[in-house]
């Protein structure tokens, strides 16, 4: 009986994870399309230059300048925001798994998942 109950909770977790990934990709795509349309509308006639690596400006690398640029209605930062949502999707999956394991009282995997999350967030 205990085994059966555990299995049901595992499947619930799987369904939630599946939904989370799906909506993450969907929301990110919508933001990217919106930003992309603005960008193409305003800069579509200009020439691209990616031959030389210059690195992105600060507003594409740091969250608060990015957000200010998005609020000013700029296209490229809006695309970048969509990309951030995309990057956040698998991270959110890890985050929610922690709750899942805690609810299952699976302490070993709860701790393991927290370590994985820490490793990922280290560099943001």
């Amino acid at each position, binding site marked *: 009986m205990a085994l059966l109950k555990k299995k049901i909770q*595992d499947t619930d*977790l*799987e*369904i939630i*994870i*599946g*939904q989370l*990934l*799906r909506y*993450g*990709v969907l929301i*990110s*795509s919508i933001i*990217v*399309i919106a*930003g*992309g349309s603005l*960008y*193409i509308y305003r*800069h*579509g*006639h*200009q*020439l*691209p230059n*990616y*031959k*030389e*690596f*210059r*690195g*992105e*400006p600060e507003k*594409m*690398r740091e969250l608060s300048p990015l957000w200010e640029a998005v609020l000013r209605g700029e296209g*490229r930062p809006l*695309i*970048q925001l969509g*990309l951030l949502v*995309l*990057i*956040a*999707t*698998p*991270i959110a*999956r*890890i985050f929610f*798994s922690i709750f899942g394991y805690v609810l299952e009282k699976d302490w*070993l*995997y709860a701790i*393991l*998942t927290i*370590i*994985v999350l820490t*490793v*990922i*967030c*280290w*560099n*943001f």
Partner: protein
Amino acid sequence: MTILVFTLILFAGALAAGLLGSLTGLGGGVVLIPLLTLVFKVDIHYAIGTSLISVIATSSGAAAAYVREGITNIRLGMFLELATTMGAIGGAFLATKLDTSLIAVLFGGILILSAAMSFVKRGDHAVTTDASRLSQVLRLNSSYPTAAGVVFYTVRNVVGGFFMMIIAGIVSGLLGIGSGALKVIAMDNIMRIPFKVSTTTSNFMIGVTAAASAGIYLQRGYIDPGLSMPVVLGVLVGAFIGSRMLKTTSVSKLKMLFAIVIFGLALEMMYNGLTHKI
């Protein structure tokens, strides 16, 4: 070529890459980087950043479908993500230090390995019951649904698989690809789990592995919105069409053709790296 035309061509190229990648199981990343660097003459750092983003998109999109079918071994995935994320961060730091020519040569090597791996026949191993102690402690042994009913399987050589996953993570972070070929070596050949489980679990892990190096890529300015926008959307649409076609089309000839193309691209990447054109 204006940004509008550039974006449209890139979208079409990424769509083709996503379609072929999902039909052949090789992933879109393996052709995106040669496409960007060799055809569009994009700097390899931008190419790696763009590819990494598209890898997260396809992995998350496909994992959403697989997880619901109950084939993915989520515990195994979570445990091995410990290895791949640590590796990925190391790899991403290496990418900022290594010479671009060396990165191009390494990339060519991984491309050849991926193409070769796609020809290795991946039958299901006899299901063993001699689980290692560690796989019992970590509760990695599991079951998955098949047409003939639920099949139980055990996981062997957990330590060996873990180390291979660290390497897979380093390669992923260094080259901006999913390194599915290396993950499959770890799970199929070392840990001996059924191939449907290893394929879906590998795909499940790829997004998290890529997200771990994305932070470093973002801070170093490798991720450009103008490049990523058409590529992410193109790869997503291509992968979606591919997953629909997969049920109706036979892919063995396509796989052969794609592997030859990848082999050719690999040689050109290596040549460009060795002659310092990249």
